[in-house]
């Protein structure tokens, strides 16, 4: 019989009270784990969409272009991409490089007109870097010179389908209006709202003709090892010289990843509030335990129990409640997270017509970070033990004679 054993038995004196207190911790921790899983999934999906459809791992621009990227300045383009391709050809970690031209344009179906992002692609090189070719859900990929690929959502908005004719209207490098008639060869459904709702993909040489230019706006690079992205960026930057700029997809989408961090903090704060409420529950439970056991504490002190052993006993009790609550919370959180990992959260209907800034559209599939689960478990137990200290102070201050007299 040890103090630990006594504390263990004490936890079960009032089973219902213990269960309710532990359950409050469980809910807080489960929410923390579930939110983390969702945010991991959200981040991964967003990063995946950016890498697979928008920027790839790295992008090279002519110096000054990125500063004005939102304006798509055609006077700061990469005039001679071959120069760069030669310079980086020997870097083994590069999996693929593809040129792109991005420009502002309007899409016209003869009745309506919408502003979209025109993207000129090199269909041979594109597939080594982007997954766009695999997302054609109707029709086929670009084949003929006047073929154009548009997103399924844009097609719906513009009442277009495979085989429909449309006109792209833009201004060329010199500011002159240009128009070109295309036939919709296929509809894509990437899951990236930019591509599905606001973009039109065409052959790069057609885009160059439309814009009266020979160069490209960017070179997109896919790496074999995205853990060494910054090293690769620096290596490329060193090889291509100061007339060009290299950015990682994280730098190019800093806003999105900042929002992710803010969302995580916000959600953590929310879960923390739940845990604080649970902690108040523990304080209450332990305070009740101390109050109703005052004569018992007096008896233990009369027997020779010092404050050290009394504190130890109550700390163990708080710890046990914390362990139960945290274990069950982790179990609940993991259970809900597994559902999110394997079945996902279908937000496609909800996100159909709203912009949540995140480049996602389909089902959000979670990703469990087991280190966070462990951290959350430890957090739950530590919080339970720490908040026990306050009610225990009362027990330590009790004089045995007063405690024994207590009714």
């Amino acid at each position, binding site marked *: *019989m*040890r*103090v630990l*054993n*006594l504390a263990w*038995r*004490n936890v*079960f*004196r009032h089973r219902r009270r213990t269960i309710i207190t532990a359950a409050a911790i469980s809910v807080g921790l489960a929410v923390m784990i579930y939110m983390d899983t969702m945010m991991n999934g959200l981040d991964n999906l967003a990063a995946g969409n950016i890498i697979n459809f928008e920027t790839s791992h790295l992008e090279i621009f002519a110096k000054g272009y990125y500063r004005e990227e939102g304006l798509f300045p055609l006077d700061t383009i990469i005039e001679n991409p071959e120069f760069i391709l030669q310079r980086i050809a020997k870097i083994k970690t590069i999996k693929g490089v593809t040129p792109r031209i991005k420009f502002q344009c309007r899409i016209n179906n003869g009745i309506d007109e919408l502003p979209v992002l025109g993207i000129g692609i090199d269909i041979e090189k594109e597939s080594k870097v982007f997954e766009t070719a695999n997302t054609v859900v109707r029709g086929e990929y670009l084949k003929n010179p006047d073929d154009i690929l548009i997103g399924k959502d844009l097609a719906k908005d513009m009442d277009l389908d495979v085989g429909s004719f449309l006109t792209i209207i833009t201004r060329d490098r010199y500011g002159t209006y240009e128009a070109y008639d295309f036939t919709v060869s296929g509809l894509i459904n990437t899951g990236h709202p930019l591509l599905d709702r606001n973009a039109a993909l065409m052959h790069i040489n057609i885009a160059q003709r439309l814009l009266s230019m020979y160069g490209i706006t960017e070179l997109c690079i896919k790496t074999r090892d995205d853990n060494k992205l910054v090293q690769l960026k620096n290596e490329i930057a060193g090889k291509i010289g100061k007339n060009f700029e290299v950015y990682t997809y994280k730098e190019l989408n800093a806003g999105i990843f900042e929002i992710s961090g803010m969302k995580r903090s916000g959600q953590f704060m929310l879960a923390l509030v739940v845990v604080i409420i649970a902690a108040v529950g523990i304080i209450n439970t332990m305070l009740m335990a101390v109050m109703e056991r005052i*004569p*018992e504490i*007096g*008896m*233990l*002190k*009369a*027997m*020779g*129990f*010092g404050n050290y*052993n009394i504190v130890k006993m109550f700390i163990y009790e708080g710890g046990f409640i914390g362990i139960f609550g945290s274990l069950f919370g982790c179990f609940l959180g993991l259970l809900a997270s597994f559902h999110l990992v394997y079945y996902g959260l279908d937000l496609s209907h909800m996100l159909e017509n709203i912009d949540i800034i995140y480049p996602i559209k389909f089902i959000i599939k979670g990703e469990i970070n087991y280190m966070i689960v462990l951290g959350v478990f430890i957090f739950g137990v530590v919080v339970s033990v720490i908040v026990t200290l306050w009610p225990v102070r009362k027990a330590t201050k009790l*004089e*045995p*004679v007063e405690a*024994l007299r207590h009714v």
Partner: protein
Amino acid sequence: MVEMIDLYKDYKVGKVLFPALRGISLKIEDGEFTAIAGPSGSGKTTLLNIIGCLDIPTKGDVLIDDTSITTLSTKEKAEFRKNELGFVFQTFNLIPVLTAYENVEMPLILVNMPAEEKKERVISILEEVGLEEFVHRKSNEMSGGQQQRVAIARALVKKPSMVLADEPTANLDSVNAKEILSLMKELNEKKKTTFIFSTHDQLVMEFAERIIYLRDGKIASDKKK
């Protein structure tokens, strides 16, 4: 031997002082079976608490085997209680979540004792108080008399030199009270442990070898049989 020298104890309730003990001086020899009797408010429990290092006198001194307990620190008092004293309370004060065995084992938690010896001691004392068949019962599965036997076993398991019992028969019927007192008397004779009771139960006074009668915090009479 316990020696009380001119003990005074005042309790302050608000601004009013209530004298509980007013100049108690007496000696209790080792192995005595002594009852401190008197009406409610006469100072019996206060005197017992002071002897048991649970309370301190306002004035005067208590010497146990020539050691002044009024000079001991809180820690030293706890240590003294742990090693030398056993307590039996009116309301038994057993820990309800523990079995009879575990309740009796409690005081030994604080003493570094090999597990085998601990087990032997607990079983032996439970046999002595006649509870060998109730070892695994919790307090709510035992009668008042059985609970008080567990409390006595708990007080004696560490072989203290003195057992202080505060109204030990107050919550027992006369049959159980008699059995408990016979048991304590038997243990007193066998183990030579000093027993000091506070009581106003006539039965306890019948069993006691010495009766110290208190009234208004003073010794009204001190009779040895």
